[in-house]
């Protein structure tokens, strides 16, 4: 029952194959249009795709982490967060502990990276640490852990590469067509081929150029949405407490901060879509992610914590008979009872204390030196501070550095 959800994996794989077919078709007809050789275009598209996939496979997580300016942290930097990740690692049965990163951003979000469960990492924003209590944070981390455990990260990375290649090809082709690409057509017409065939090729190439990116995007969204539901279901199973994730999602939905370092390509990696209009709440505008309100309603109406309970709630809320999780998984899971909320989660540490913890963490990560004066004032010295002593601005005492 803890094995990955295989039949869904194959269904996602079929969708990926469709995207690949779309790319090859696009390459073939663009090749026919520009160079008069379909196979040439096909090979060009294929090579482009392979190169980009290789980069994404070997360097994708580094690029993503660098782009979001994430900082690696250890147990002593933030014991609670580290412990929660370790708890979820144990609950999910993952063998290696993922590395932990933090992004200094008031927006609330989290994402998982890593091509396989042995080399995974989880990144959270400081805003998330500040505003979520222990149970909520556990729900979010459980969701990310599920992405790692179900190998969604690699699947989504490969999908976004495919999407990116299609968009790129279509974009460059359209520029060529507008700015003096017509010569290519004439050249190919001289190398034989009837007038009618030529027109058909042009039309197909044009239609593909416009439709392929759109269709690829639709497929992409279909895949990523399904993975989100599955990750929610797994998180509920790991934590045995779906209300934790639900209340975290409520807080995330209500927040209006926009993540500074996100962009369109990385959007599906996050727990909620970071790419939305400034000042607008992340409720139902999202397309890479299922509507948050729906995710919350499903989680809230779960009677137990098993996959079967999630499926029941999913069908009730969405009013469908869709097979989200294959029957074999459901019967194996049995009944799984919910647990009570953690006592300390509801009371302490309170939001003020969490905010203090998080800002301490960020100061320390930026290598600021903290000195506590006898009057209780905390002095933060930047890493470039070289003087041997410092005067407290509050009480005037001289403190040695």
């Amino acid at each position, binding site marked *: *029952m*803890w094995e990955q959800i295989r039949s869904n994996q194959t269904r996602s794989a079929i969708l990926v194959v469709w995207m690949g077919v779309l790319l090859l078709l696009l390459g073939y007809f663009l090749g026919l249009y520009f160079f008069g050789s379909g196979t040439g275009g096909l090979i060009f598209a294929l090579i482009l795709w392979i190169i980009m996939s290789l980069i994404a496979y070997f360097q994708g997580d580094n690029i993503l982490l660098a782009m979001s300016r994430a900082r690696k942290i250890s147990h002593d930097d933030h*014991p*609670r967060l580290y*412990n*929660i990740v*370790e*708890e*979820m690692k*144990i*609950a999910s*049965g993952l063998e290696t502990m993922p590395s932990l990163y933090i992004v200094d951003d008031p927006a609330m979000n989290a994402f998982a990276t890593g091509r396989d469960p042995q080399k995974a990492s989880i990144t959270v924003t400081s805003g998330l640490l500040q505003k979520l209590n222990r149970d909520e944070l556990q729900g979010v981390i459980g969701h990310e852990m599920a992405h790692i455990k179900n190998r969604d990260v690699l699947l989504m990375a490969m999908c976004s590469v495919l999407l990116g290649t299609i968009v790129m090809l279509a974009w460059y082709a359209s520029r060529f067509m507008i700015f003096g690409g017509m010569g290519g057509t004439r050249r190919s017409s001289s190398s034989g081929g009837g007038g009618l065939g030529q027109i058909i090729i042009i039309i197909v190439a044009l239609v593909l150029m416009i439709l392929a990116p759109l269709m690829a995007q639709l497929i992409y969204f279909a895949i990523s949405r399904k993975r989100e539901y599955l990750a929610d279901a797994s998180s509920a199973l*790991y934590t*045995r407490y779906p209300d934790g994730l639900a209340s975290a999602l409520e807080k995330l939905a209500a927040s209006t901060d926009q993540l500074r370092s996100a962009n369109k390509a990385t959007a599906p990696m996050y727990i909620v879509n970071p790419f939305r209009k400034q000042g607008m709440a992340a409720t139902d505008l999202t397309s890479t992610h299922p509507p948050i309100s729906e995710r919350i309603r499903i989680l809230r109406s779960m009677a137990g914590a098993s996959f079967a309970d999630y499926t029941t709630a999913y069908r009730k809320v969405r009013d469908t008979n869709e097979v989200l999780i294959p029957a074999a998984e459901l019967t*194996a899971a*049995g009944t799984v009872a919910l647990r009570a909320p*953690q006592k*300390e989660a509801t009371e302490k540490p309170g939001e003020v204390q969490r905010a203090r913890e998080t800002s301490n963490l960020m100061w320390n990560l930026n290598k600021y030196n903290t000195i506590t004066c006898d009057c209780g004032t905390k002095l933060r010295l930047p890493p470039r501070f070289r003087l041997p002593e410092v005067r407290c601005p509050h009480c005037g005492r001289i403190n040695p550095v």
Partner: protein
Amino acid sequence: MIAVWIFIGVIVIVIITFVAIYNGLVRSRNQVKNAWAQIDVQLKRRHDLIPNLVETVKGYMKHERGTLEAVTKARTLAQQVASAGPGERGKVEGELSSALNRLLAVAERYPDLKASQNFLALQEELASTENKISFSRQFYNDAVLTYNNQTQMFPSNIIASMAGFKAGEFFEVTVAAEREAPKVSFT
């Protein structure tokens, strides 16, 4: 001639099935062992945290010697059976859990203690270890369930009994938390 080939074919299929089922059983048994090792790590971690906790708390709670001694005693007992099976350890660790819960409940009445950074850090570690124990228990019990199903269901049960695969034991920690109210002493 054909009959011979069919015979050979049947034998090959039987051998392949046998190997597959046997390997599946071994895999599940290793999964159970692994999961048990996880629990063991967390239980040890809890044992290691307790002396620290008792040291920290002692200075503040002068009048709670009984509660502190109960924790220390439960810990010693738990360490003595550290190599025993899941059933016995579950009972002893349950005692330790309830003794710890009582101590933490009593600690609520000492504002100085609750303000101590050291105590807060210890409390977080203890709460998290407690969580880790229950999460690893979840995982272990699920692994045992899968393994036991394999040893009892047809046709793998035949191979299991032939090769001596014994059913695994579930791990349950019975916490008698609210069985007795913590003694309040005014002196």
